[in-house]
Structures are given as C-alpha cells and as structure tokens.
C-alpha cells in the first residue's frame, strides 16, 4: 500500500469520525413544557388535581390516627408517646411550617390561569382555576394556622430574582387574626367561582363552605377581640347554612366504608383505587387491625378459635385502639325511661350490676389491681356485655368492635382469654389493642381480609355534612354564651346527628351548660377518627367555662389529661372492671397551658431566618 493511500485513508476516517454527528446534541425524549400544561383546561386541571392531592392528604391517613392518639380517644399499643407528656421541644416542632412547594403550586395555578387566558383557557376556565388555587392555598395555610397560629404568607410565584436584597427572608404573620384573615379572604374570594356540581374527589363550593364553617370557628377561638370573634362565629354559621344539597346519611358506618363511599353526606373525600393501593398504605385500616392466630389462642388458653381464613383472619399491624373513655360517650337507651343515658347509669345496668368503686375484683391479677377504677358483678344470669353494649347509640356499633360482636364473620370475645383479648398473644404489646376494643369505623371489608399487600379501594372522609352541622352548633353555643342567639338551635342540630346517625331519641336540654355538655359528647362521638377532636379540644379550652369543665379560658384542657381506660370482662361475663391503661406509661398525660395552644415554630427555621420569630410563647 502506498504511503499516500494510507495517509488519505486515515485522514478520511478521521474526518468521518469527527464530522459524523455531534454527539453532544442530546435531548430528553419525554418532556412537557409550560405551554403544554397551561395551554388547555384539561392539562391545567391535571396540575390542579395534583395540587389537591398534595394539599388534602395533609388532612388524612396518618393524621387521623396520630392526632387521635394525642387525645383520650385512642392509645398506642407500644406505649405512651412523648407528645402527650409534653416531651417535644422547640426544635422538633410538629406544626408543618412551610410547605412552600405546595404554596408555589397554588400560586402557580392562580398566575398561570391569568396568563394563559385567551391562550387556550377561556375566561370561565381561568376563573375556575383561580378559585381552586385560592381554595387550596387557604386549606394549606389553615393546617399551619391551627397548629402554630402563624405562617409565612406567600401570595405570588416567587422567582430566583426575588432573592435580591433579602427578599426571601419573609416574616411570619404576627397574630392568629392576621393568619385567619388571609385564609378567610382566600376562601371568600374562591367561593363564587367554584363549581357546584363536581366529580367525587374534586373541589366544590360546598367543600369551601364546609371548611369555612370550621375555619371561622377555629379563628374565633383564638381571637381576643370580641367583635371580631362574633363576626367570625357568624361567618361560620353562614357558611354552614350555605352548604347545599347535602344531607345526613342514614347509615352512619357506611359513610366510611365500601358500602356508601359516595354518600350524600360526604362533602369532600379523597379516594384511592385498588389498582395502586394496598391495605398497608392506609394507616386507619392496616394499623387498627389486630394480629393473632389460632395457635396463639391455643397456647395462651384463649378462644373461641377463629373459623375463617385458616384461623388467621386478623393479621394487621395494629398500633391504635379506642379507649373506654371514648366508649363511655355513646349513650344506652334506658329501658325504663326510653332515653339515652351513660351506660352505667341505665336502669337495666343499675338493677343488674353491683358496682364497686376504687377497688379491684379478686380475679384481677395482682399486678393490674392498682389500675382498677371500679368493678362490677352481675346479678343472676345477666351477662355484662349485654348490659353494656345493648341498645346503644347506633354509632357505637359502627365505630367499635366490642365483646360479643361479630367481625369479619368471627364471634369476637373480648373477655379474659377471649379470642381478641388484649393479652391473647401472651402479654401486652405490639399489634394487639390495650383496651379490649378495636376500631371498626373506616375499616373497609377487604377481600379476603386486611393483609399487607392486598389491594383495596379506600376513601378518606375529609369533611361531611354532619361535621358542618356540628360546627354551626358550636358557633351558636359560643354566641349564646356571648348573649346572642339561642342555644336551643344548637341542641336541635345535635339532636339531628343523634337521631339520624345515633338512632337515639332526641335529647331534652334545659340550660346552656347542659347544651354544651350535650354538644361536646355529640361531637366527640360523631367525629372520632376524623382528625377533629384534638383541634376541637383546643377551641374548647380557649372558650373555657362550660366548654372546658368550668376551667377559665386558656386553661388546662381536661380532655388532654384524662387517663385512658380499658375494660376487662371476666370470661364468664359476670364480672368486669374498668382500669387505667398503664402499659408503656400510657397513663402519664400532661398539658402545659402556657404553650400547648400553639405548637412551636421550628427553632431551626428561626435560626435560619430570624424574621420567622419570635417563637411562640412557652417554647
């Protein structure tokens, strides 16, 4: 080969290689640019839907269970948590400050909807989007307002350029008044343009009103100016009244399970589809199901044995169980007077049970004797579970699993040595309830049972008509206490939920004090496991007086310090006792009124941006 040829060939190769293609001009193959997303209503809606998902999940799932365990309604089977013992500090705030990513999403909806009007979005489209952006922004900030009272108000899409001259070192709102004013203004701005008829899971005008009835109530509780307080209480009532087309569901329990997920009572719920949902992703399902099996029953002398699913119908990962304290709130119809009364005060109970206060029955084991508050023995052949659990508020049956009921086609025995007894696995501890009750409310009938990895549909009820009515009732009671309006209107509302959901006779109430008592019992029973009681107790503490067992406004809240209790029924069902849950120091409950009405703004954040301060009082 001639030198020339080789050189030519080599040069050619080199040129070909260098010039063949520019290997650096690569690109991503799947992208969606801004114009694609905002240039049509359907794609813009998909952005809004994503924002709904982000914002509204903050109200459900783990929130229902964790905020419930911070009240006397539930206990954690591993033991008491630091929160109820005031063991949190200013660094580990639980208030959820920030969430600026989702705030940005809300502001982006509002701004882009404006910007793209006429460029793929009609005026109506734009209005609809802006209203939803504002509603979501209000709901996002409300979650921060009710924990910390304050937040960083951002009402536009910030740009990197805003970092100039400390533009990002934004302050928090100074007062709860300022915070709630922002929120309520957003709600009011959103309401007129929100759609009235929507798909299940979408934002609606009703939903905005429902939230407003509660937000205004919470705002009023923290408000010190009497006139403002009244204004907001009235706004709460007005909002509740503005809800259209909703009605109380006739079957209370079905609202929360697969039987009636689109109930007329539901104003807003978040739905899950079994295509991408397993039971283990749903805390109020997986984590309220006990875990035992027939072998454990046999080993520990318990029974009766389970008949279904190879002796293992219950293999959940229980953490939370309801307390006897909560159960006490569900009235029993007195067979003598036909009225609802506390179970241990019913005629049938009193006539058939000898109650002994302050000491333990001899069958209680020595180590637990000190826990006992009172015990009772039945007379004759009456069974204690029948006396306790018959003829109760219908919501009781829909909310709890109790001794003698049927659950997942099994006869449930919650007596000593019963098949779901608290110590069926040999001792107290994980995955069995500590109270001899289990949650039934919100538990879907998953085929064949609740088991990690099993697909299921689910829906979390975020707000519903019953809740709106009770919000209104509370506003009426507050106003009545301030000399405006009539508490009887509140009583009438409470009787609506009591009669429709509880299937109890309406209650007669003769004073504001009694009205408060009635209302408090009604709200606790009606809205348990719906992420309500914690916030409601704070409001009641702020109100004080009748709302808080006569304590002055801003005082200690008894609902937070009451010692959780359990029931222990002897296996012949002739004797029982009610005792304090001491496992894992569940009985140690504290509440520091000097700081607990508002959780801390995380100190680490204040350290980064001093404008977020000053710290909330007491932290």
């Amino acid at each position: 080969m001639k030198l020339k040829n080789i050189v030519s060939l080599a040069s050619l190769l080199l040129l070909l290689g260098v010039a063949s293609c520019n290997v650096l001009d690569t690109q991503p193959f799947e992208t969606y640019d801004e114009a694609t997303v905002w240039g049509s209503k359907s794609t813009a809606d998909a952005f809004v839907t994503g924002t709904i998902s982000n914002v509204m999940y903050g109200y459900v799932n783990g929130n229902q269970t964790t905020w419930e365990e911070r009240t006397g309604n539930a206990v954690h089977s591993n033991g008491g948590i630091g929160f109820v013992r005031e063991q949190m500090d200013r660094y580990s705030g639980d208030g959820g400050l920030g969430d600026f990513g989702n705030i940005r999403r809300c502001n982006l909806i509002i701004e882009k909807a404006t910007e793209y009007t006429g460029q793929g979005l009609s005026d109506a489209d734009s209005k609809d989007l802006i209203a939803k952006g504002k509603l979501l922004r209000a709901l996002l900030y409300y979650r921060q307002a009710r924990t910390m009272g304050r937040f960083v108000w951002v009402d536009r899409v910030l740009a990197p350029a805003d970092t100039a001259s400390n533009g990002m070192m934004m302050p928090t709102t100074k007062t709860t008044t300022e915070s709630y004013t922002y929120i309520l203004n957003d709600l009011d701005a959103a309401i007129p343009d929100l759609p009235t008829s929507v798909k299940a899971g979408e934002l609606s005008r009703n939903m905005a009103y429902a939230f407003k009835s509660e937000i205004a109530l919470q705002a009023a509780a923290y408000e010190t100016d009497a006139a403002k307080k009244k204004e907001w209480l009235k706004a709460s009532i007005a909002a509740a009244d503005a809800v259209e087309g909703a009605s109380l569901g006739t079957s209370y329990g079905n609202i929360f399970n697969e039987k009636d997920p689109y109930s007329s009572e539901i104003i807003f719920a978040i739905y899950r589809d079994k295509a991408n949902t397993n039971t283990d992703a749903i805390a109020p399902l997986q984590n309220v199901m006990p875990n035992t099996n027939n072998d454990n029953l046999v080993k520990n002398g318990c029974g009766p044995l389970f008949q279904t699913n190879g002796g293992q119908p219950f293999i959940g990962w229980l953490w939370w169980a309801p307390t006897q304290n909560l159960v006490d709130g569900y009235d029993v119809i007195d067979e003598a007077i036909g009225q609802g009364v506390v179970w241990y005060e019913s005629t049938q109970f009193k006539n058939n049970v000898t109650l002994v206060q302050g000491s333990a029955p001899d069958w209680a084991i020595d180590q637990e004797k000190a826990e006992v508050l009172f015990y009772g023995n039945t007379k004759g052949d009456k069974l204690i579970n029948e006396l306790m659990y018959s003829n109760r508020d219908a919501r009781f049956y829909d909310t709890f699993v109790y001794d003698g009921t049927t659950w997942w086609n099994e006869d449930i025995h919650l007596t000593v040595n019963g098949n779901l007894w608290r110590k069926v696995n040999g001792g107290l501890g994980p995955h069995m309830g500590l109270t001899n009750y289990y949650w039934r409310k919100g538990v879907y009938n998953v085929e064949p049972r609740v088991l990690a990895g099993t697909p299921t549909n689910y829906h979390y009820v975020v707000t519903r008509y019953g809740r709106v009515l009770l919000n209104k009732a509370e506003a009426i009671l507050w106003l009545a206490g301030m000399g405006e309006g009539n508490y009887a209107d509140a009583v009438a509302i409470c009787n609506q939920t009591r009669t429709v959901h509880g299937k109890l006779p309406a209650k007669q109430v003769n004073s504001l004090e009694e009205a408060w008592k009635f209302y408090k019992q009604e709200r606790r029973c009606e809205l348990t496991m719906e992420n309500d009681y914690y916030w409601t107790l704070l409001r009641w503490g702020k109100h004080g007086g009748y709302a808080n067992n006569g304590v002055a406004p801003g005082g200690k809240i008894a609902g937070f310090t009451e010692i959780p209790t359990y029931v222990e029924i002897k296996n012949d069902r002739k004797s029982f006792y009610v005792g304090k849950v001491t496992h894992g120091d569940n009985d140690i409950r504290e509440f520091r009124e000097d700081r607990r009405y508002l959780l801390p703004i995380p100190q680490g954040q204040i350290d980064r941006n001093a404008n977020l301060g000053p710290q909330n009082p007491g932290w």
Partner: protein
Amino acid sequence: MNKHLIRVFHGVKSSMNEGNISHKTRDQVLKVTKLALLFLFVCLWEATAALSYSQVTKLNLEMNGTILQVLNSIESQSEFTFVYKLNEVNLDEKVSVDLKNKSIDEVLEVLLRNKSLGYKITDRHIVLFKKEEVKQQSQPNMIVTGTILDDFGEPVIGANVLVKDQAGIGTTTDMNGKFSLDLRDLKSPVLVISFIGYTTQEVVVGNKTTLNITLKEDSKALEEVVVIGYGTNSKRNLTSAVSTVNAEKMKNVPVANVTDALAGRATGLIVTSAGGGLNKQSTVSIRGGGTPIVVIDGFVSEYNDFVNLNSDDIESMSILKDAAAAAVYGQRAGNGVLVVKTKNGLKGLRVDYSFNQSWSEPTYLEKKLDSYERASFDNTVRNLYGLEPRWTDEEIEKYRTGSDPYNYPNTDWQKIMLRNLTPETKHSLAVRGGSEFNKYYVSFQAYDQKSMYKADTEWFKRYNVRMNEVSEFKDLGLKLTFGLDGYISTMQTPRSQYSTGYWQTWGHIQNQGPMGLAYNKDGQIYVGYDNPVAEVSSESGYFKFDNKMITGLFNAEWNVYGVEGLKVKVGGNYRFGMYDTKEWNKTAPQYDLEGNKGPDFPVSLQYTTSNNRMWTMQYFVDYNRSFLDETHNVSTTLGYEQSYAFGRGFDAKRKNYVFMIDQMGAGPSDTMENGGNEWERGSAGLVARASYNYKKKYYIEGSLRHDGSDLFPKDRRWGNFFSGSAAWAVSEESFFRPLKERNILNFLKLRASYGQVGMADVSRFSYLTSYGLTERGYVLDGKIVPTFSEGALISDDITWYTINSTDIGFDFNTLGERLSGSFDYFYMKTTGFLTSPSNVGYADPLGLSLPKVKSNGEHRRAGYEFNLSWKDHAGDFNYEVGANFTYFDQLVAVAWDEDLANQKNPYLRAVQQTGYYGTGYTNQGYYQNSDQTLNLPRRDGSSNLVAGDIIYKDMNGDGFIDGADQWRIGKNSFPRGNYGIYANLSYKGFSANILFQGATSRDMYIEDVVRGQSTGGYTMVYPYQLDYWMPDNTNAKFPRIAMNSSVNGNNNYVTSDFWLVNGRYIRLKSLQFGYDFRSVLLKNIKWLYKCQVVLSGQNLFTISPATKYGFDPENGSTNNYDYPMQRVYAISLNLGF
C-alpha cells in the same frame, strides 16, 4: 552484585537511527509472508529452518556509519539479535561496508576485521565480545543444557545466558525456554541469566550438565511497562502518581469479583467492603475520592464491566492518582482512573486451565440466646420492675428441657436457615498462542456462587468470554487489534411478601425469637409474618436478574512510513448491554399447628428489560523519538475521542395472580401495567500530551484535554483540563555514582505534578425546563387520573468544576535494588461546586430549589501514601515482603451546600472540620445514683431518669440539654488510613502469598437491635447484651434495661456518641499456599508445564473493636440486617499445557 547492562535489540522496536539501508529482496518478503500465513493458521511456532538460518540468510549492506548502525541494519533485515555487554564493547567506531548477498559470517568478518571484537553465532543470536579475553585452555568436553522457566513454570523465551567474566560465550533461550552452551574451555564457569522484567540471576555450573533455572519476575524493575491514559510508559519514565496492581497475585484469590480482591494491593487504592452477599461489590476509592472511572483496553468503560471482569484476563492494572496522570480524561477523571489492560497472545501455544473450589462462612455471626435464656431473662427484668413474671417456673423448665417443643419451642433460626459452609466454584480456561504475525488470546470463565440459605433458592452465576487478537504487518508497519469481550451474569434471590432482600431476611433471622416456630409438626412452614423460612422457601417467589454485555473493539496502529517514531492510531468500540429482571412475588404457603393453611398473600409478576448501545471512536497520533543516542527523548500524543450512548427500557406487571404460573399471560389482564423510557448521552474530547526527557535524567511532561459533555447548556459544554509534571532522576547524575556503585542507593527519582481534572455533578438536562407527569396521580369519580407537577427551575449557568491536584513524591531503590519504595504527598483542592444557593441561605419561600450555579465552595483533601518492599533470595528461597499505606483527610474549606445558620454555629458546622461522624449528644457514662439524676442537667424530653440511664453533657452550659447541645461527635465513618502488608515467598515448587489488610479508626453507629432496644420493649438477642447496667454492674456495656425504651423519654437511645463503635481493623485478608507438582513429581511430563495446587483463604481472621458487638467491621449493617462478611477457604488447581 555485578551488574550487567544488557541491551537487546529487536528490529521492530529499535529506536536507533537506521542510516542508509537497502531494500529487502523479493525472496525474503515472500518467505516472511509465507511463514506468517503458516503461523496464522497453525498457530504453532516451528523453528524448522533454525539450524541453517545463519547460512541461508543473505544480507545486503551498503552504508557508512558506526558499527552500532550497521548492527541495527542487520537486525532490521533479518531475525538476528545481537547480545553484548555495553561496557565491554565499543560500537561507536566508524566503518564503511558495501556488501551484497553475503552470509552473516561474511558480513561480520568484514565488519569486525581489525576491531578488537569477536563474535559467536547461535541460531539467530549473535554474541559480541572482546577478542583478547577468549581463553584458550584445554578442558574436557562439557556441553551444558538447561531450561529457564518463570515463577509460573512458563518457559522464558529469549532470555540471555552469558558466562560470567567470559566475553563471547553466551546464547539465548528458544521457544521452550531451553539453551545449550559449550563450556569446555572454562574453569568453574558461572552463568549469568537475564531477561527484561526479571531479576538477573547467577548460577554456578559445577559438575552439572543440565540446569533448571527459574527466573524471578522483577516486579520493581524500572523498565516495567505501565499502562496510562491513552498509552503506556515505563516506571522509570513516569512523572505522575501511578501505582499498579500485580494481577498475577489475585489469580487464586477466592472472591466473586475483582473489586473484592483489590484491598491492600496498591498504594492509594482504598477498598472497603460493605458486607457479604452474592454479587456484592466492594467500594473502590482512589485516595479517598468517589467511584473512579475505569478504562479497559484503552476505552472508558462502564464501571460494571470492570466489576464483572474475569480477573485472569487482566494483564496489568494501573491506578492514575494525580491530575498529571488523569487529566487526559478531563471532567470524568475527578475521582481518579483505573486503567486495565487485558492479556494478548504470544508466540507458540499455551493452554491454562484452573479450577477453584471454595467454601465460605461468616467471619462473625454471634449465636443468639435460646428460649430458656430469653424466658429467664424476661422474668428477671419484670422482677426488677416489680411486675408479674412473664413465665412460670414450669414453663421455663419446658423451655430448658424442650419437653413440649411445639408449645414451648426453642428455635435456632440461624441453624435452620443457614449452611455452615457455602460452596463456590470457578473454572477458567485460557488459550494463548500465535506467531510473529498474529497472536491471539481466548479465555472463558464460569463462576458459580451459592448462598448461605440452605433452601438453595439463591445463587449467582457468571460467564465471561474474551478474545483478543493482534495482527502485525511488519513490512507495512501496521498493527491491527481486535477484541471481543462479553459476560452474562445471572442471579436469583428469593422474593415474598415478607422480604425484598437481605435487609429483611437477615433482619428476620436475627429478630425472630427462639420462642417462635419455624415448622409445624408435619414439617410445614409455620404461619406467622416474617417467618424467614417462608421467605427463602422454593415455594416462594424469586427475583432474577440477567446482565448481558458484549463489547467489540478494534484498533489500527500504523507506524508512519518514513517518519521514525510517528504512529497513527484509529480505534473504536461498541458495547451492547442488556439488563433483564423478572420478579415473581409469591409467598410460600404456611400452616398452623393443626395443619390449617394460613393466609394467601397476593402474587404478582413483573418484568423489566433495558438495553443500551454505546460506542466510542478514537483518532490518535503518537510521536515517540529519541535523539542523539537517547540524549533527548520526546513523546507526544494528540487525539480526538467521542462517545455516544442510547438506552431503552420497558417494564410490565400483572398482579393478583389466581393461577400460580409465573408467566405474564397467566396473570389477570385487568391488572396489567407497563412503562418505558429512552435516553441518550454523549461526550467528546481532544487530548494532547507531550513529554520530554534529557538522558532519562530530567523529565518534563504536560497534558491537556479539551472536554465536552452534554450535561451542560450548549455554550458551557467545553472545558479545558491540563496538567504539568516534572521529575529528576537524581541517581542518573554523575555525582550520584559512588552511592550507586556501593549499592547505597541504586535509584532515586523526585517527582512533582500539578494539574486540573473535572467534576460534573449535576443531573441530566437540568438546563431545560420541564413539567413532570404522574401517571396515577389521583382518583376522580372512581377513575385514576394523571397529574402534573412543575419541574426544577432551569439551571442554565452550570458547567464543569475543577479539582486542582498537586502531587510530590519520590521513588527509590536501594541495597542492590532489594529495597524499593515510593512516597507521595498529595493535595487536592476542589473548587466551584455546583449547588443551589437554597442549600445555603434561606430561600424556602420560593417553593423550589434555586437553580444550580457555580459556587465558591472549596473542598480540600490531602494525604500521603507510601510503599516499601524488600525482595531477595537465599538460595532457592525467594521472598518479597512489603507494605503500603495510604492516609488522607479532608475538609470543606468554604461551604457550598451547608446552611448558613449551621455554618455560624461553631459546634455544629461541617465547614472547616476534618472527618467526624455526625451530630449528637455527648455521653458522660451512666447515672450511678439518684443524686445525679436529680442534680445534673437533663435532656429536654427525658423523664423518669434513674441510675443506669445515660448522662448527657450540657455542652453549652445553659442548664438545659436540648438540640443546641447536639454537637459534632465521633470520627469519620470512612477510614482515613488504609494499609496492606504482604509477603510473597517461594521455595522450589512451593509458594506462599500472605496479605494483611487494615484500616485505621472510623466510627460505626450501632442500631436498635444490637443496642438491645426496640420500640416495643427491650430486645435481647445476644448474650453480650446481658451486660447491662445494674447496681452491681455499674461499668456495663449497655444502659439499664427498661420495659420500654420510651419509658424515660427515650433518653438512652437518642443520637449520641455512646453508641459509636470504632471500626478500625486489621485482618488476614488473603493467604495462599501453593505447590507445583511439576517441580519434582511430574518433572518429566513434557506436555504439562504447570500443575499447581493452591490452598487459599480470605478474611481468615480479624482484629477489631467492632467484633465485641458480634459483627465484622466491614459488615453492611450495624444491625446485622445484611448478609455477613465471609471467611473463605479455597483450593485451586492450575494446569498449564
């Protein structure tokens, strides 16, 4: 030691001035071509014409010049090789020759006439010597024959055999390593045997007529060829920090992949294991940096291809540590470069087969408490707190005696689940052969690894194949290289509802209590969640991956005709990789004691498949030339390289299987899911390097890469990376000669380098805006709908950033080249990190991170490293001992992603701190009495403190212990100092290789189960955990036992230095003991050149504080939630034909 400097000239490799030469005859060309063809097809070297070569060969010479030039000319025309001693023979005399068609005898007669030189021809080797020294004594006939082999029993071809102090007598070995010498006139002759790359050896002939001589490889020989970026160099000429790994020493090491064999084997290379497990890789770091890039046979390759290399294929491996060595790889070389060259063929034919069988067991696997111990302990603790006993005496007795094994079981989960010894096998076959014209290397390896799980449901297999072929067209100056490299690695591991891998399964083996049952009375798997027996059962599902790769490469090198030293190279490779997975998620049926079947878990099947294609093209021009008899030596490289990759992936899934058939079609069609994606990436670079040395005394080198990456916006893609280095071989100076001659210091070279390499730590396409789509975002009216999210803000001001690397070092050898070593100090300063300012200042309200920009952040890493080795022999006993040590530390000098608030806190900040573990409380031991619990400041949130709880220090003295007292604690978790100590010994057929490896202090944080804590209460698993605080055991390893860890506000388990354990260690990493039966027993079997049996072990023992907690310091989990590190015993058989 009488050192001979022997120069061997090979026509092709000659770098001397050729002068005027005439063209070859047509006949010769034809003959060479015919021979070459013969070699190509038969692949056997046959010296048919050897005996008469000197008579047959005719030469044409017409030139004026030195004798040396004439000799060169002869070498280039023929296959003759001249051998002579430099200090005896003067070749600078001028001669004038004009000879046509003469034999070599005739030529040399003319050439050496009247010169004081004599010659002797043996086949193709011509020995030159000083004439008058030829002794003429009369002695009996004595023809000595011999064979010269290397350490591995392979014949050394072309070794020089000279007689000491006798000019003119000598020869070279043939294809079989054999030689024959007539020593009849000599009195007590001593043979001097030498060959490049081997230690020169002297052998007293005595009365022997047959000699078997083993040449020892001279690993520290300065002429050793070292592969570097885009080329090779010799150790002598290196000006940068490059260390090498001796691949031969890794040959019989029983490890699953090459990364596991590297620890302790090279200076600057830090290799840390992260636990055992099938196909687990060690982490490889160069001087403490991140994962280096790997270059295999000249091309930047996927790291995975390095991991999956057949280690027997590795011919040499270099570690490019400083910028001077690595800058030619530009922005990818920030963490250093591993350069691997695989083996090529050789003349002749050699077949090597080796078989390796190994058995492994955990280095540490603490035995668990049994039921009786657990039950007794339960009662002890409850008694401590005044609670009812958990177990009655009868029950405890049942646990002790095992009289009621199904109601009171005592399950040894480790025994039930695990083998004592886990087998692995490896077969390797390599065929090397070829001729002058064409050489090939073909290898095949099969590796089969089993798991500790008795159930046999986990295994790993790998098959490697490699073919390297080189054709040399000498008359064209053209060399063509073709290579094909492929592997398939397959692994199966169990999958079930309970476990997606080691973390769960090993967790369950540990955490399942002895009071739980594994099987029911019928031997069926017992019900219950997380039963590890079910997890690994063959009736459960599996996850299988299949990684297939094939790379083809070619290279053409052309020595440009007429321009001495100029070479043009074109090369390219194409890689096709495929990665498939199949996951059959099924849980074995479980039964209760009565034989009732437990719950069925949902069953699903998922396939994923992805493939990628990558290619690289390289165009290079090299110029290497020496002038004025190696006074000026120049070497330059200039080239362009570009590569591109494209990939595509799919996945498909079905759920809730009704039919238990692990096929897609058998699954319910209403649960179908699928997905897929495609990607591409590209890079390009211009490379330039030039080096010059003056008499191999003063060296200077510079390199540059103009590097482009598609990670950055168009106008910021290209970066320039450069380096400069210099070296001074002090020992070559004349003033050094006395030291050298007295063997005080034989060689000393000082080096210094400075340069920049790059980093490009940014996600792809971050300079483009994009919204993200979530396919299954939300449910509206019972239907799943997609949702959109805003992507990250555009980072359009990003580009590469740089590591400025300085290295100063020296290499030396002394005491007659027996002691050698090197030392380096290095300092790397990385500046300009890409970061979002949101990480530093408060920009949270933006809602997204600020776009990434170049920062003024600065990170420094500095350290030193050295190695020393002593190599000598005493008779037939050869030994080499040595050590290497690498130490580094690092700090953030100017923070780039640390929050400003943190930076301002002197006790928390990471900036300006050398290695520490993290932040947490500082412990002060245990409260020993109630006075202390009342009077000492207590942590916010701690309550009910009693004696035996941990005291924390009020660091800021404000009387409270809260977040503000969580200061920096502990030492870095990555060891700062790493070392290897080795000894290689051999005596006749015996050989032993010993390697100790270790790391200096580092902290490991032990986790909840090992701490004896769990959210549910105390968890006592191991006997050592019984050493807890009691009034009579106040110096305990663990704090007091509480019924529940939260009883005191979790006081004892908040992050603190109490739970840090020092993970420093030294271990016998590798021990090999071999014997070659060929040396005595099978001496006379001609067709076998090697029959070696090697016994070896890996991780044979370990000394470390971590073992007090029952785990290996290199375990993957400080909670034992991982496959433990393994101790391996192996036997290997190496056969060579």
